[in-house]
């Protein structure tokens, strides 16, 4: 194929990556790999069992035997942080996946069809956004009962709104573009126009928000875990661990610090990836 010698990068044009990724994105992916390893192989990586009591080593500060120290039951904090990764990544995924898919779908349809569909959507949005997100989620969990599954249900039933709003606005802009009108003049079905032409050009902000939302999801899961509405003790979950350790904050700060750091690092990971993806997914003009 004849390509211009001016631009050696052109050969990579068929691949998804049309621009070289930023170092921050690579850092994000590296961190993600670390978290995934911890989530997939906790038994191999963790030096102790997460729920193994050791009454001979209660509230030990970090040492060679217990790099992150031990908590009030003598459980190894490092092992619990590693086992907690699995739960918290699962929370990140399940609190965002359904809202992303369903919200994108609703946003695409309301943005494309407008009129009464959009009017109904607008009223639902009004109802939901008058409540602070966390308060609404807590209320729903309180009704359904505490636990991870009910937390997913609660977050999903509220969270899709934000994706839908994002995608709706973007679809409304894109459908006015001439390529979308050309697709209609081509006689393509609405489904084809929406999913093949509009959505690929409208979904980028939602994907970027998905990444941010994943870190928010972890924080939310940890918050609800802390409040006793999410994961239940003795499950090794970062929020639950922080809640458990809060009474010994002064005497044994490592019990709360390390799960807190893990939480922060996970949030950072998704933010870095989201930021990097935003650059990669932006189409060339």
């Amino acid at each position, binding site marked *: 194929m004849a390509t211009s010698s001016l631009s050696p990068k052109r050969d990579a*044009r068929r691949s998804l990556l049309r621009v070289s990724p930023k170092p921050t994105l690579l850092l994000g992916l590296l961190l993600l790999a670390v978290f995934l390893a911890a989530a997939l192989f906790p038994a191999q990586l963790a030096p102790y069992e997460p729920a193994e009591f050791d009454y001979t080593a209660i509230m030990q500060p970090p040492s060679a035997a217990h790099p992150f120290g031990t908590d009030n039951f003598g459980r190894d904090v490092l092992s619990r942080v590693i086992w907690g990764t699995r739960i918290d990544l699962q929370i990140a995924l399940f609190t965002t996946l359904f809202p992303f898919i369903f919200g994108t779908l609703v946003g695409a349809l309301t943005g494309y069809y407008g009129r009464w569909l959009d009017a109904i959507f607008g009223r639902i949005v009004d109802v939901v956004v008058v409540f602070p997100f966390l308060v609404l989620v807590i209320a729903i969990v309180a009704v359904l009962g505490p636990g991870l599954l009910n937390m997913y249900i609660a977050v999903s039933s509220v969270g899709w709104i934000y994706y839908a709003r994002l995608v709706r606005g973007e679809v409304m802009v894109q459908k006015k573009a001439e*390529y979308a009108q050309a697709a209609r*003049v081509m006689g393509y079905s609405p489904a084809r126009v929406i999913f093949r032409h509009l959505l690929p050009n409208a979904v980028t902000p939602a994907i970027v928000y998905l990444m941010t939302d994943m870190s928010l999801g972890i924080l939310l899961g940890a918050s609800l875990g802390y409040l006793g509405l999410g994961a239940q003790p003795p499950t090794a979950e970062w929020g639950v661990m922080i809640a458990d350790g809060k009474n010994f904050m002064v005497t044994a700060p490592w019990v709360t610090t390390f799960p807190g750091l893990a939480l922060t690092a996970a949030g950072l990971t998704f933010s870095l990836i989201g930021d990097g993806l935003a650059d990669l997914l932006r189409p060339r003009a």
Partner: protein
Amino acid sequence: MSEALLRVENLTKSFPVKEPLFGRLRGSPKRVVRALTGVSLEVRRGETLGIVGESGCGKSTLARCLVRLHEAEGGTIEYDGADVRALRGGALRAYNRRVQMVFQDPYSSLNPRMTVSQTLAEALTVHRVCPPREVKAKIQELLELVGLPPSAAQRLPHEFSGGQRQRIGIARALSVEPECLVADELVSALDVSVQAQVVNLLLELQEKLHLTVLFVAHDLRLVHHISHRVAVMYLGNVVEVADTDTIFARPQHPYTQALLAAAPDLDPAKKSVVAAVRGELPSPLKVPSGCPFHTRCPHAFDRCTREKPGLLPHVPGHLTACHLYDAAERHRLAKGEALQT
């Protein structure tokens, strides 16, 4: 050649104006932009009909109504005997295959995420223009047809210049083998040097493929160059239709005369004789009563403010919507002039 392929009669279209909530509460009357106020037009098989007019005169709205991007409100569109406005589903798809459109903006008319070959292949497969295994060959054929290199197939729109993108747009429209092409300001976004290339391509294709072309433009010289016949639009109306040579040599409607006089001429020896039109284009929110042009017409008389002139063949083959050419008025005006002298 003389058979009418597309017949538009008394087509109307208006767009509601979004009033601020406060105004609505105060009970302000609902305002509408009257984009088309009774357009009548005939396009003959195999011809190029140029549609000219100032911006805001409704030419693009007309083009979009013809391909059903907009739904007209009143009047009829008849294509090859079929009522276009009543087409639904499969029949509409079949119509869209026969009547295609090329868009104005080369920078937004192509899906930025699809390569040229994806764009063309989609049209070819959805409409089953050719068997799947021939799609690749057909794409190359189309690229050659519009003068693009075979390597263009694998590229994304952002790798092309404006002129090349318009060629891709033409290739996309031609991929479904239409009979009629609606070109809405095809080249107005391009550099003048590139305009000629694209327009000549269109002329060439029209000849080769026996296309019927509706060429919507505001550039009179382009329209002169490309069209067999020209329709002049003013404020949602067609005010004059005639052969290109006739309309440029002997324009009848005062608006056409003014439009031609206002067009810049590169020949300094020619001086414009007719005074250019005075005043601003009235807002399509408030279309004047009677003849829409009477507010700016140098020849307007009282009948013009009351009665809208019909588009009539005052001279055979030359349609004009103007009371000046009405036989009775001519007689009266001639008498008036005789009295004055």
